[in-house]
């Protein structure tokens, strides 16, 4: 009898411990992260002396390269963006910049061509391979949180795990673009793009929903990046005009030319012609 009671107590104790650990799962959320860093790629050895960049010379129209820097977790990190996703995002970003007359060509460069901690030597090799002058280095940081709500209590029914969306997902994404002139090692300008995606999932399809949220997060962040990048490009163009000593611009064969009067001349012309017309008419009728 005593032995039977002992066995019963052991079984009840085990059930209690499992339940408590399940409750702990209700309280503590899960987090996953995928990230890459331009600084780690370009300046991997913190103890090395950083080379001072020279004055960049931009030859218009330019050949531009765009690439994601390798992930900080290593090339084959479990949760890293795959090559196809990266190419899709790069095409999304490149599409809006092909219209500019000063950009001759945009090359989408696979991350596999960039070595971990490749630095500027790696960029020089890419420059030779692709014939590009300017490089857009993309990096990202995406964090996904998963918390279980009260609805997750229905998972005990087993069926509930398939039907009720007890998992709350929160995906924060940042994509950063840093534009470098390869020859001079100088960063010309940079821009970020951010997004936040909130979603929910059942216990069973949680990983599928997290992948979908991750893709959506990157797409939204890329859209935001394109807008910010265009704004930074306009600021950079103004800066070149205001401070031509900081960036030298030269024109190679194949540039586009145009005839432009400008707003001020147009205004002055209308003003003076209007005066001439007004006084001319008055003198005719006087």
């Amino acid at each position, binding site marked *: 009898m005593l032995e039977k009671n002992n066995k019963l107590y052991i079984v009840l104790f085990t059930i209690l411990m499992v339940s408590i650990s399940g409750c702990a799962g209700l309280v503590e959320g899960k987090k996953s992260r995928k990230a890459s860093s331009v600084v780690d790629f370009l300046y991997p050895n913190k103890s090395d002396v950083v080379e001072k960049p020279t004055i960049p010379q931009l030859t218009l129209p330019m050949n531009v390269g765009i690439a994601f820097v390798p992930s900080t977790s290593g090339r084959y990190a479990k949760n890293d963006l795959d090559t196809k996703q990266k190419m899709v995002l790069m095409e999304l970003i490149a599409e809006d910049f092909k219209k500019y007359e000063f950009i001759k060509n945009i090359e989408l460069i696979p991350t596999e061509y960039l070595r971990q901690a490749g630095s500027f030597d790696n960029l020089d090799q890419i420059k030779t391979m692709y014939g590009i002058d300017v490089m857009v280095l993309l990096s990202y940081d995406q964090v996904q949180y998963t918390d279980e709500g009260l609805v997750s209590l229905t998972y005990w029914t087993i069926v509930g795990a398939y039907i009720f969306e007890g998992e709350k997902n929160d995906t924060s994404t940042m994509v950063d673009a840093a534009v470098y002139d390869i020859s001079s090692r100088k960063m010309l300008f940079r821009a970020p793009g951010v997004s936040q995606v909130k979603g929910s999932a059942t216990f069973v399809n949680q990983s599928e929903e997290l992948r979908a949220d991750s893709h959506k997060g990157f797409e939204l962040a890329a859209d935001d990046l394109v807008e910010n990048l265009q704004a930074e490009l306009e600021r950079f163009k103004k800066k070149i005009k205001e401070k031509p000593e900081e960036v030298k611009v030269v024109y190679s064969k194949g540039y*586009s*030319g145009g005839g432009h009067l400008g707003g001020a001349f147009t205004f002055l012309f209308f003003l003076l*012609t209007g005066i001439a017309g007004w006084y001319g008419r008055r003198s005719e009728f006087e």
Partner: protein
Amino acid sequence: MVVVPNLNDSRFPGITLIVVLGCLVFYLIPETTIWAVYDREQLLHGDIWRLFTGHFVHFSWRHLFFNLSVFAVLGFLLELRNRWIFLWLIALTTLSCSLYFLLFIPEMSKYRGLSGLVSAAVVYLALNEIRATVRLRFIWVLILILFLVKVGYEIFSGEAVFASGSDSDFIIVPAAHIIGAVMAAFIFIWKKWDGGTKY
């Protein structure tokens, strides 16, 4: 002397209207731009029409607006006075600008913009008004000086004065303005020697 001609005149500024509509069509329908733009490579392959149509294509709405608004007014004023001279001005200016680019600026692969033609019209109108007008001559002299300052600055600095704006993704070509002015002066002098009346 009155700048604005007598509106009872039966002439309709059809050529000006065609140019304005052409510019608008090329801007609003981007597919036509590919066919019409001055493209050196395509010209050398035989697309002769680009010598003329290239001037009616523009890079942006701002580029289009400033060129076209001035041209519309000048075209109206000039065409109502003498349609044939206006037509010669357009033909000679567009042709000579494009041939100049082809022969002397081989590194420029594409060109867009009506300002060469507008420059010709500005100079031609100013020269005629300076000759005919006594009281308001100084205004036309001032317009001519402004134009010369603009072109001079473009040549010596390599930048555009008055034509600011961060949407200028192209290089401004002062040669277009100079050739326009030269064509205007040529037609003006030819008309004077020909013994013709003003315009």
